[in-house]
């Protein structure tokens, strides 16, 4: 029996993985060969998807990107020689250069096999947590230096400790799986490739804070992740990993999957809580902090998927090792999502501190179109645009936070020299206008004015650039949340770093 892996990750499916899997089983049947096809998650090397892996002894040999037409030759070559053979998957430079902690099992295992997960280190963190007191759990997470991967970078352990200490007999763990940032897909990949890792992290969060109920708020744009998570929760319940007595510990924890409804702003934690409660996804003023008065007014941990899914490995391997990775106050690893116009796009998990230039040139290998890089947007739709002469910026919170922009959910989007930065600025304003929750005027009205002003700049009307700058200042200062508050980052960075694209026809003629 030969074991063949064909990913079920949405990106692999979008590139034809199902047809490849079907071709393999048809070919095997025609040749009378016994094969077992495992539908794994993705290794994150999206330019090689569908990346087929064949187990050869202990080694996973890669072939990709595969099409159904490539399949017969796979059999002809005895699953070794093939025009698209890549050698051992874990020796592919893009993969070998990573430090895979959170994503250690993603792409390796059958995502819906608890046994497969356990054999590869799963549930070790939870088993250890079950021997610890809640104080010890939150202290260990604090000690690790883990900061929220959803965007704001708040220390996860401190948030948990606030919830642990908050009075109340009913507390909640809410996993933010709204992943609305363009250029990001780490949450999706993890949920599709190693769902038990997230479940394990949520149970540990429950043990650390005294919560016995968790919700995953998952965006509706991810039907495959929704299906996988729902199935995984059902399997976890049957295996006793969830339920009234987690792994026979006598401690209860339940998880429910909730589906979003197409609103980007519902990724903001208080908007998310309103949405979960069945209300309009309007942002709430803070205080009160969700940690004290969150879901239904009760103490609530709201954490990103990656924050929660990183906790099991921290508890398993210990806080110290995690803390030692990275630099400054950016500890551990971060799954950087390399997207847009790149040759090698995908997910690259590495310790904080790699330079933006190394990411673009060495990891992504430049543009897919082969043209020069003009701009790189870091941190999603609210993140700033960078120029190649800023490529020495290290990837970490300290270097990006504040004036320069933000790490956000760690997506980088690369553009070649055909990009029109005025159009990108306009899109940022348009997106803000479409997605604004409507609570504050600078965001709701300002973004609409922003689009109009950029159109006037395009048309060559004088004095509009100053107006745009004022508008951005108003939005930055007068918005309740980062949607209105940070939209000026992409707009102003485009304007100040790529002034030629804003030179109006009249000015250009002068």
């Amino acid at each position, binding site marked *: 029996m030969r074991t063949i892996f064909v990913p079920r990750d*949405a*990106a692999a*499916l*979008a*590139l034809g993985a199902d047809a490849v899997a079907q071709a393999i089983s048809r070919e095997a049947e025609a040749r009378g060969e016994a094969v077992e096809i495992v539908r794994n998650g993705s290794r994150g090397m*999206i*330019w090689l*998807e569908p990346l087929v892996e064949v187990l050869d002894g202990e080694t996973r040999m890669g072939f990709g990107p595969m099409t159904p037409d490539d399949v017969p030759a796979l059999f002809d070559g005895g699953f070794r020689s093939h025009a698209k053979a890549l050698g051992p998957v874990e020796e592919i430079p893009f993969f070998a250069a990573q430090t895979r902690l959170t994503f250690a099992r993603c792409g390796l295992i059958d995502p819906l096999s608890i046994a497969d997960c356990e054999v590869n280190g799963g549930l070790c963190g939870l088993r250890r947590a079950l021997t610890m007191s809640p104080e010890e759990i939150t202290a260990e997470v604090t000690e690790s230096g883990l900061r929220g991967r959803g965007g704001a970078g708040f220390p996860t352990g401190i948030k948990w400790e606030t919830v642990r200490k908050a009075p109340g007999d009913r507390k909640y763990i809410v996993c933010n799986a709204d*992943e*609305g940032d*363009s*250029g*990001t*897909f780490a949450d*999706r*990949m993890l949920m599709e490739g190693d769902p038990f890792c997230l479940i394990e992290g949520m149970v540990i969060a429950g043990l650390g804070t005294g919560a016995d109920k968790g919700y995953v708020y998952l965006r*509706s*744009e*991810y*039907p*495959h992740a929704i299906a996988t998570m729902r199935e995984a929760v059902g399997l976890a319940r049957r295996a006793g990993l969830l339920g009234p007595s987690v792994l026979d510990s006598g401690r209860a924890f339940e998880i429910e999957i*909730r*589906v*979003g*409804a*197409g*609103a*980007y702003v519902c990724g903001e934690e208080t908007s998310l809580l309103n*949405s*979960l*409660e*069945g*209300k*309009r*996804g309007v942002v709430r003023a803070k205080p009160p902090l969700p940690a004290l008065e969150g*879901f*239904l007014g009760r103490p609530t941990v709201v954490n990103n998927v990656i924050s929660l899914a990183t906790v099991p490995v921290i508890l398993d391997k210990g806080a110290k090792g995690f803390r030692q990775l990275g630099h400054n106050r950016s500890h551990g690893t971060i799954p950087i*999502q*390399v*997207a*847009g*116009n*790149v040759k090698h*796009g*995908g*997910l690259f998990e590495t310790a904080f501190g790699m330079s933006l230039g190394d990411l673009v040139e060495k990891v992504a290998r430049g543009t*897919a179109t082969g043209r020069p890089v003009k701009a790189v*947007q870091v941190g999603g*739709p609210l993140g700033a645009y960078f120029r190649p002469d800023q490529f020495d910026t290290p990837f970490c919170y300290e270097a990006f936070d504040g004036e320069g922009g933000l790490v956000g959910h760690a*997506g980088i*989007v*690369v*553009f*070649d020299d055909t*990009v029109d930065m005025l159009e*990108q600025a306009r*899109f940022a304003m348009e*997106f803000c206008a*479409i*997605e604004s929750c409507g609570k504050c005027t600078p965001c709701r009205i300002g973004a609409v004015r922003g689009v109009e002003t950029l159109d006037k700049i395009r048309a060559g009307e004088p004095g509009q650039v100053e107006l745009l700058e004022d508008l951005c200042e108003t939005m930055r200062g007068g918005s309740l949340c980062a949607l209105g508050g940070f939209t000026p980052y992409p707009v102003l960075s485009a304007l100040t770093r790529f002034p030629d694209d804003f030179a109006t026809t009249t000015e250009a003629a002068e």
Partner: protein
Amino acid sequence: MALDVAESETIARVREIATRLKPLEGPLLPILHEVQETFGHVPASALPAIADVLNLTAAEVHGTMSFYPDFRTAPAGRTVVKICRAEACKAMGGDALAAEVQERMGLGWHETSADERATLEPVYCLGLCACAPAAMVGDTLIGRADAAAVLRAAGEDTA
């Protein structure tokens, strides 16, 4: 009248869904999702029924529903075509893809063809940003999409 029968059946179905999901904490979104899955949209007559079961006003239910782009007040076409409009896809020619699909389908955003065959929707990221531009046609995801692949998946005549 036949219409009334249909409407009272709708209301009965909606009440069944709402009553079954009412025990959830924050049941309204799950109810609206299931109503939409059942009918293809959220019929106007569903709102007072949901409100009644949840002890809310119809205005509150409408207020929530209207906030979310996913909920439709009228049925979509048989195939929903979604094209990603966000940055990573723009970096790979997403705007040109969108324009070509719009032109060849003869539809603007949020429009449904007269024969109810298809609806065209924008989407802001499908998580396929490393194989951009991306589209979703019905349940089918398309990476590195071009107009021909999108139209083929939508069953449109690509001749």
